[in-house]
């Protein structure tokens, strides 16, 4: 007797394959998003906005309508789409370079306007696609292509704490940081992503989920060590948790 325990989500392309490096966190998150879209049954009502970086190739993986954006501008493209088609599910998929470095202005303003969209921000503390340069979230001491002796705050300043900052925006309804460094944390991440989706589907408001994700190639670590690095180092600087949930606040 066979029991099916694992199948490809409907909204992932049948013949599509993720093209990420071994151990990369993107595939895990993209799959979680696909599962949620299936679970909510919104594949035909979803428009995804791709951004610039390793997050760009959404149309290669998803059987979804996809709009492109210039670097950092996905929340603005999402705004234009959502205002035109308020009944559709609209999400941006961005990295820390896109959403928090070049596009921080758009991120903060879109959150403050309370646009009823969802942003999933993959934070791997570097510019992955261009080969691992320092980004807004790079840890103090972290070695990257542009912080060759480790990030020196005296010289290049401190990392930005995105979820905390977005949570301060009055227009944001739901803000969380999750991690995908273990089966348990992945399970938790999916629960939180589901909440974020609900915020939009129920018309409550803007949701933002920052996902601490691995980048073994640019970190120069094995996939296993990368997971450990998130747990031991990154989470200390960028702690996980729900930073804002207006449905809970109101209940209180």
């Amino acid at each position, binding site marked *: 007797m066979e029991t099916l325990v694992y199948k490809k989500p409907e909204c992932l392309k049948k013949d599509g394959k993720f093209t990420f490096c071994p151990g990369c966190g993107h595939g895990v998150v993209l799959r979680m998003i696909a599962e949620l879209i299936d679970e909510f049954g919104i594949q035909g009502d979803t428009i995804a906005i791709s951004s610039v970086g390793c997050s760009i190739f959404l149309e290669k993986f998803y059987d979804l309508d996809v709009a492109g954006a210039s670097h950092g501008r996905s929340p603005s493209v999402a705004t234009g789409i959502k205002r*035109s088609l308020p009944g559709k599910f609209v999400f941006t998929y961005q990295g820390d370079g896109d959403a928090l470095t070049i596009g921080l202005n758009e991120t903060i303003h879109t959150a403050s306007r309370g646009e009823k969209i969802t942003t999933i921000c993959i934070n791997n503390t570097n510019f992955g696609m261009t080969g691992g340069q320092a980004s807004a979230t790079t840890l103090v001491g972290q070695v990257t292509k542009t912080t060759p002796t480790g990030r020196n705050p005296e010289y290049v300043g401190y990392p930005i704490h995105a979820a905390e900052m977005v949570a301060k925006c009055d227009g944001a309804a739901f803000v969380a940081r999750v991690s995908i460094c273990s089966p348990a944390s992945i399970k938790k991440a999916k629960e939180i992503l589901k909440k974020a989706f609900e915020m939009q589907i129920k018309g409550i408001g803007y949701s933002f989920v920052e996902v601490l994700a691995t980048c073994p190639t640019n970190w120069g670590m094995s996939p296993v060590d990368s997971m450990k690095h998130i747990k031991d180092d990154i989470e200390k600087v960028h702690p996980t948790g729900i930073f804002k949930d207006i449905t809970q606040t109101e209940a209180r």
Partner: protein
Amino acid sequence: MIKTSSKVLVKGNEAIAQAALNAGCKCYFGYPITPQSEIGEFMSRKMPELGRTFVPAESELASISMVIGAGTTGTKAMTSSSSCGIALMQEALSAMVCAEVPGVIISVMRGGPGLGNIAPAQGDYFQAVKGGGNGDYKVVVLAPATVQEAVNLTYRAFHLSMKYRTPVILLADGILGQMMEPVEFGEYPYEEIDTSAWALSGAKNRKPRFLVSLHMQEGEMEAITNRIFEKHDLIAKNETTYEAYQTEDADLIITAFGTVARVAKAAVKKAREKGMKAGLFRPVTLVPFPDEALHNAAKSAKMVLDIEMNKGQMLVDVRSAVFGAAPVEFYGRPAGGLITLEDIYGQIEKRLG
């Protein structure tokens, strides 16, 4: 706005905004900059009344990206700005052309370079016509000379944008934006364009669609670029417009666009009264540029004099179109230097008097 029977006394900026509403513009996204802020102010009042969208964007980068978002859904959308603000939109304009996303951009030029000043100028001809974005691309550019024409061309901008799935820039200057004159709006004169074959709406009961501007497969980008330029050949064939005033027998043909062309027309009239054979050739579409018509007009003239409120930008296209059919000279004032009737008449008299 002040109305009499059919005409309305209205500022250029407000006329453009009203025309956009009449054209069915559903979304306006913008960031304030003189001399076009009245457009956004007008939209902030009218859009909510009509149940449409006004979003005060955080920057011109954001406003043009919002236009892209709306455009991908086949929704008529617009932004407006001036010189430095339009500069910030160049990357997005290039991406819009590549992804074939419609949208209307109102550019009300001020003096530059740099922050420049807020005086009327035409220093952004290159910015609109040649573009500051990356790669091989073209944007359709329309240049009104009167407030009435600004209304008519706003209608046309929306039409061309939807018909050809391309950004269209309406290139005005501070005078047109700030000037009041009586106009007739009439109704939007074009048929609605069906966008259902390409617009994003969620992939329900159909194949997914993507409107993006990154194409990494070998040969993919080349094919797309070629297709976009074929589209522009079609636009040139179908949509090129210009005004030729007294050019048939003219010894001296003035080339000018926008407000300067309007002033030049008065100078040509004055010159004709004094027996000097001057004429005016005014491109209405700057892209596509009326090369052939200008070349043919120049053949019978002794001289072409290009006049612009800049250091000689359309001049490049005028020379290319005239292509030796007559000598081309230039008169211009940059960065807010106004060109008056007396200036242009003086230039004619110097050559024909």
